[in-house]
């Protein structure tokens, strides 16, 4: 490794990186072309630096990196007025789709990239690039007796659109190739130039199931950019909403995993419990998915005091119910036969992609933003981060059950410790840059924002955890039977909208 510097920030200093002004809470460095090349080399030589995100804006590229040994985050930027930059995808395969998306959105060319196909641009936008107009070339699959099963973009269930191309040998999947981008709405473009409050509404709708997580990440990035913190009561209310969101989604997905292995009983029970959680959220905050409740500066409305006992009762009931559901899941051979050793993703691959959430924690990667990059009030709350090593559908299902239990504990602690005081502060209009990492139900949401002096969003970048998980689904499905794809997919439950932006 060049410079022999093992920790990220001292490496950057050695590589000639210069500190960019006013970027909080983590530093942003600018490097020149040589510095960026050294970074690419260094990334190839170490596994402890996770690539959190790689994104562009006109004539500039940014990489967010996490030094997992030191739990330190840094953003590294390269100015590229000629719209060329050395690719990072050779060192980090998770960068492949990120680089393809940068080319689609900003005409930024990743030199040395292995895959130059368009990704989000399907050749349909009025402002699209020429490179996307040609018919899409899928990866070649060669071999005797292989057949191709195309699925999508409109799927059979009530789910988001995407295209899956299976090459199968008999029942066995030889290769799955995903093609995404169908629900690209141009969210980054829509956020640019908007007042903070309007951009926050868009952040809440990056991925509907993570409305709280994305709103919270955006809000924390804005607050960081302005050098402010939300009031203490807002921190606790935010955590309450985030944990309710986590419980609701884990319940829904755990039920759906069981449904996909033909065990609808658990699905029916989970569906009813999920409904109770959403109703409790509605009673407390006036919206079932709690959209637009977490806002920059704090929260948009206080908890309805009449709703708190209902949440406590629900927590108590779920504490009894979750072990019951778990024991049914565990004792049914027909379920175990389909989930154990199905859809395996190896710990090594999870590390290479820095995949978070139950995908990472189900395969030995213990990262949880609430623990590794702590933000209030989690630094004052007690909780465990469940980790399993197997990396199969079963491990991901168990992580969800264990996390529900942890979240129930957190909800109780938040209600007990909820401080009095204001729920929001008014934000000053000032320029600045900020970033945030927030643990959503699916994994860590990264958000970055640059504000202009009038208090508008100059540029914003919401990065859903799905970016780092979608590619692993392709790996997980390999050598499984086609009929097990739905349960593998459900065990990941990646966001299409959050990825497509």
């Amino acid at each position, binding site marked *: 490794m060049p410079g022999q510097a093992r920790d990220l920030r001292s490496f950057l200093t050695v590589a000639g990186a210069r500190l960019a002004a006013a970027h909080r809470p983590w530093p942003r460095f600018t490097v020149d072309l040589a510095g960026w090349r050294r970074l690419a080399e260094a990334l190839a030589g170490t596994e402890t630096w996770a690539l959190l995100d790689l994104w562009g804006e006109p004539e500039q590229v940014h990489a967010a990196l996490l030094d997992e040994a030191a739990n330190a985050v840094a953003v590294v930027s390269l100015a590229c007025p000629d719209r060329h930059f050395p690719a990072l995808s050779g060192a980090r395969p998770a960068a492949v789709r990120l680089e393809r998306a940068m080319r689609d959105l900003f005409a930024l060319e990743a030199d040395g990239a292995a895959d130059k196909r368009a990704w989000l641009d399907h050749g349909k936008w009025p402002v699209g690039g020429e490179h996307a107009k040609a018919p899409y070339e899928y990866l070649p699959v060669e071999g005797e007796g292989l057949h191709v099963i195309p699925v999508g973009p409109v799927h059979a269930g009530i789910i988001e659109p995407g295209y899956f191309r299976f090459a199968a040998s008999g029942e066995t999947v030889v290769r799955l190739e995903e093609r995404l981008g169908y*629900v690209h709405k141009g969210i980054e473009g829509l956020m640019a130039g908007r007042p903070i409050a309007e951009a926050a509404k868009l952040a809440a709708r990056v991925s509907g199931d993570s409305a709280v997580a994305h709103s919270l990440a955006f809000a924390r990035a804005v607050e960081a950019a302005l050098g402010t913190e939300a009031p203490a009561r807002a921190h606790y209310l935010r955590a309450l909403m985030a944990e309710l969101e986590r419980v609701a989604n884990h319940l829904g997905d755990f039920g759906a995993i069981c449904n996909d292995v033909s065990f609808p009983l658990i699905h029916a029970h989970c569906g009813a419990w999920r409904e109770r959680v959403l109703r409790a959220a509605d009673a407390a905050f006036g919206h079932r998915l709690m959209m637009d409740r977490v806002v920059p500066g704090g929260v948009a409305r206080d908890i309805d005091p009449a709703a708190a006992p209902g949440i406590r009762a629900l927590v108590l009931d779920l504490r009894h119910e979750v072990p019951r559901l778990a024991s049914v899941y565990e004792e049914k051979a027909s379920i175990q036969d389909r989930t154990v050793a199905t859809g395996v993703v190896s710990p090594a691959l999870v590390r290479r992609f820095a995949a978070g959430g139950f995908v990472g924690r189900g395969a030995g990667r213990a990262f949880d933003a609430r623990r590794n990059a702590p933000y209030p009030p989690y630094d004052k709350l007690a909780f465990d981060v469940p980790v399993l090593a197997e990396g199969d559908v079963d491990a991901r299902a168990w992580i969800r059950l264990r996390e529900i239990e942890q979240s129930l504990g957190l909800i109780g602690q938040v209600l007990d410790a909820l401080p009095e005081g204001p729920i929001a502060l008014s934000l000053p209009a000032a320029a600045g840059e900020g970033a945030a990492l927030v643990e959503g139900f699916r994994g860590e949401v990264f958000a970055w924002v640059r504000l202009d002096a009038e208090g508008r969003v100059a540029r914003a970048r919401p990065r859903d955890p799905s970016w780092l998980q979608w590619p692993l689904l392709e790996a997980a499905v390999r050598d499984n039977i086609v009929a097990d794809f739905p349960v593998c997919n459900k065990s990941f439950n990646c966001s299409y909208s959050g990825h497509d932006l």
Partner: protein
Amino acid sequence: MLRLLSRALLKGPLTEAAPAADPEGLAELARKLQGAAAARLGRSLAIREVDAGSCNGCELEIHALNNPIYDVERFGIRFVASPRHADVLLVTGPVTHNMAVALERTWRATPGPKWVVATGDCALDGGCFAGSYAVVGGVDKVVPVDLRIKGCPPRPRDILAGLLALLETAEGKR
């Protein structure tokens, strides 16, 4: 598992009473269906859901219709896997440019008489995504819309009320 089953039996069904059919929806449909071919739906409505660009919020609430509390199948309403089996396309999202062709093809693949229900604020006019280079706009920019259900996302009860309005109107027209 026996405990789970016996408790469920003893406690009785979780399913709640249905909401009334959406009066606004009834009025909109009455206007739309004037002179239309008599529907032969009976009390059965097969729905193909199409996400044409949504954030997934609407899908979550449509999903909820299938849980035991709303139990939409008791009304003869069911979600089907193919547009060829569908009477209704329940469409969500601002229609993105990347989904416009897929939506139009799904609509063409649906046999008549058919209805399109635009679900959620984005499906009505593009919602907060209107004006983007990547978004065509509301569902009616791509396929004709018969019924609109507001909300971001609409609550399951609102979606159910809209679908019941469709069922009642269609029944009256036979």
